[in-house]
């Protein structure tokens, strides 16, 4: 009998001893693989900043477009987020709508739609954007095409009647006198790019410079996100300041369009400001997932976008070409990434060294 308590005592000692001894707490230190510190930026943070950069133009677009514009933006966000959550549920994956990427896709889609659309079209567009544009490829980071533009392309083709007629009739912009807009409208009744198409054919005479002010500060003919070039550039400035996008894409894209349009006889400043070029170059083409990874790859991508946009603008039935141009170059991105790669440190030097050694060997 006396053995039993002794055994128990030993047992309790064994259990209690580790925390008391010097060894035990030390074994509870955290370990990990280097680096042991990380940058503060996260995916959610980046998405949040892009949304923030889009806010000025969104707010102004909704102000100009009124309630219907608000519903369009809201519905495309709802469509995108609900689809993301639904598909992730179905796939038994963690639901990641809180990373804001679906919100951003929905917002971008909404900004590329005309303000007077019936509510179910943006809803459908948001759903298509996420389902066919993103989740079908495996979700964030795996898609080939810009999801917002996939959604827009589908509804653009399916409901082209709505897409081309749901623009604002009367402008409501603080800096623009409605007389000047009315004056232009009374001449053309068409969107600026379409009007300039007619000008080129000689069917119309209206100077491109008459459009500068509305395009910069209050464009009634465009989509919700095309209302003001200035506010888009403000958003771009935020992204560049935070180091979130590479300057090469907007600069090379817009630059290419400007130069080619100028060669083809269009007013270059008008070419830069009109249509969806700025929002496309600043917010669509710069989408991380669907543009090349390297600096030179980005340049090729952006110049390609510019060339395609100009070709579509000048030589197709479409008044605008930004959407299809970006989608086209998205498709080429894997190819660009395959062939445009940085030469690692020391690889050129090694080749040079080997060539020299060979020469020496030949000489000997």
């Amino acid at each position, binding site marked *: 009998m006396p053995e039993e308590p002794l055994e128990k005592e030993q047992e309790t000692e064994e259990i209690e001893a580790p925390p008391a001894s010097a060894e035990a707490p*030390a074994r509870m230190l955290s370990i990990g693989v*280097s*680096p*042991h*510190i990380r940058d503060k930026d996260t995916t959610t943070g*980046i998405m949040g900043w892009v949304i923030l950069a889009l806010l000025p133009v969104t707010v102004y677009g909704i102000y100009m477009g009124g309630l219907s514009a608000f519903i369009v933006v809201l519905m495309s966000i709802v469509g995108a987020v609900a689809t993301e959550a639904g598909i992730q549920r179905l796939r038994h994956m963690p639901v990641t709508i809180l990373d804001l990427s679906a919100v951003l896709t929905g917002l971008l889609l909404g900004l590329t739609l005309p303000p007077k659309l019936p509510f179910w079209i943006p809803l459908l567009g948001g759903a298509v954007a996420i389902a066919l544009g993103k989740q079908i490829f495996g979700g964030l980071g795996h898609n080939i095409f810009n999801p917002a533009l996939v959604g827009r392309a589908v509804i653009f083709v399916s409901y082209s009647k709505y897409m081309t007629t749901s623009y604002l009739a009367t402008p409501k912009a603080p800096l623009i006198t409605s007389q000047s807009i009315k004056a232009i409208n009374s001449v053309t009744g068409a969107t600026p790019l379409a009007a300039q198409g007619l000008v080129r054919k000689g069917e119309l005479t209206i100077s491109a410079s008459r459009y500068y002010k509305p395009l910069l500060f209050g464009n009634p003919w465009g989509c919700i996100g095309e209302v003001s070039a200035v506010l888009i550039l403000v958003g771009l400035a935020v992204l560049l300041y935070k180091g979130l996008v590479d300057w090469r894409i907007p600069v090379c894209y817009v630059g290419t369009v400007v130069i080619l349009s100028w060669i083809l006889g269009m007013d270059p400043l008008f070419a830069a400001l009109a249509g969806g070029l700025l929002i496309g170059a600043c917010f669509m083409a710069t989408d991380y997932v669907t543009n090349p*990874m390297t600096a030179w790859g980005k340049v090729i991508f952006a110049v390609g976008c510019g060339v395609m946009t100009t070709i579509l603008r000048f030589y197709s039935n479409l008044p605008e070409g930004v959407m299809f141009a970006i989608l086209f170059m998205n498709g080429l991105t894997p190819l660009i990434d395959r062939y445009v790669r940085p030469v690692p440190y*020391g690889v050129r*030097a090694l080749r040079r*060294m080997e060539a020299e050694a060979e020469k020496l060997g030949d000489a000997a």
Partner: protein
Amino acid sequence: MGLTDNIKRALFTRGGVHPPANKLAASVKISDGPNPERVLIPLTQHVGSPCEPLVEKGEKVLVGQKIGDSEAYISAPVHASVSGEVASIAKFTHPSGRDALAVEIISDLEDTPAEGIAPAPDPLGMEPGDIRARVREGGIVGMGGAAFPTHVKLNPPSDKRIELLIVNGAECEPYLSADYRLMVERAQDVLHGARIISRAVGAERIVVAIEQTSPAAISAMRDAAGSGGEEVFTLPAVFPQGAEKTLIKTITGRDVPSGKLPMDVGALVDNVGTCAAVSELFLTGMPLVKRIVTVAGDGVTGRGNLRVKVGTLVRDVIDHCGGLEGGLGQVILGGPMTGLSQYTLDVPVTKATGGIVVLSKESIISEEPGHFTCIRCGRCVRHCPMNLMPYLLGSYSDAGMWEELESVYINDCVECGCCAYICPTKNPLVQLIKVGKEGYSRRKRKMETLKKDKEEKSLEESNA
């Protein structure tokens, strides 16, 4: 730096990151570390073959007495850092995480030096061969963290000429300030050591490279150089500026060829700590038994730059600095970008330990995805100092595509950690790359043996 330079850098420069410097101990003078009663001196503290123990259990040893050595060329002897009695020679936890043979010495706290420890009378007049022999016997290794035996670096093959000695004072790791203090307080020693090294390799030009964020070190080294002819080169402050290849590129504008050594471009890089150790060895005769260790971080009460005896347990050093603060966090030997985190405090400080960084529980990174997720932001590509495509290295490794890893130059990766640091999805890129390197080399070995077997087989068949 002009405005145009700044714009140019913002638009075009790639490579490297800017983690918060957190040089908490930079203003603290070097002081003596603890006087431990027990030290564990690992027989492997360097790149190369492990040493064989030269002492036995129960033997009395003195400070500076050689207690381990190896016949191998790439190796460095180890010496007793205290006087006392050998308690055991056994396997103990090594900072690398594996258990390794170490000599356990119970100190008599007297620090009696061994016999025969005497300064070299005229080190700058010595023959290169004699300098190398002395450096080898002194057990000197690269003190920047890699711990490559210095005598090997001082002995380039006869067809390579070393023209330039770069004294590496770029302490780009956050928190660490040991090299900085060394340059500020002992500039003459650093230069003296550099002169001895340059004498050994015949380098005509000595460049001391210091980051622009350390003006005190720059002026101290400039003053010490005086009219001696050594140049002080001001480096941009970016991590990993102190990495050998990056450093050579910045100073000479030349790349070290892939898979080759600095000597292939006529350069030799030695850390300021190594230079100071060489100087001390020739001035006093005492081998490398102490090194300067920065203790800093928000998980430790005190901070400082301590002269620590090799073999002192991390526990003793942390206790000397007031102990852990706020419970158990993370203890990193080296800097937080490339250092090794330890699971126990009972690991010894080795010749390669430049810092003990203690992060509190709150500072430990907790968010890390369970699997490889990439949003293709391109930051890793932009920030890789070696111009690699880290996201491809990571995804190939994650998918087990070992054969593809060669096409993305996996062996050129220096594991500096910039990619993982900057990654917004917090992918463990360095871990994936380490795994990838292992998988790639294993596959390569396997393919080679398969090829060999096949050749032998066909040879047999043809013979038959």
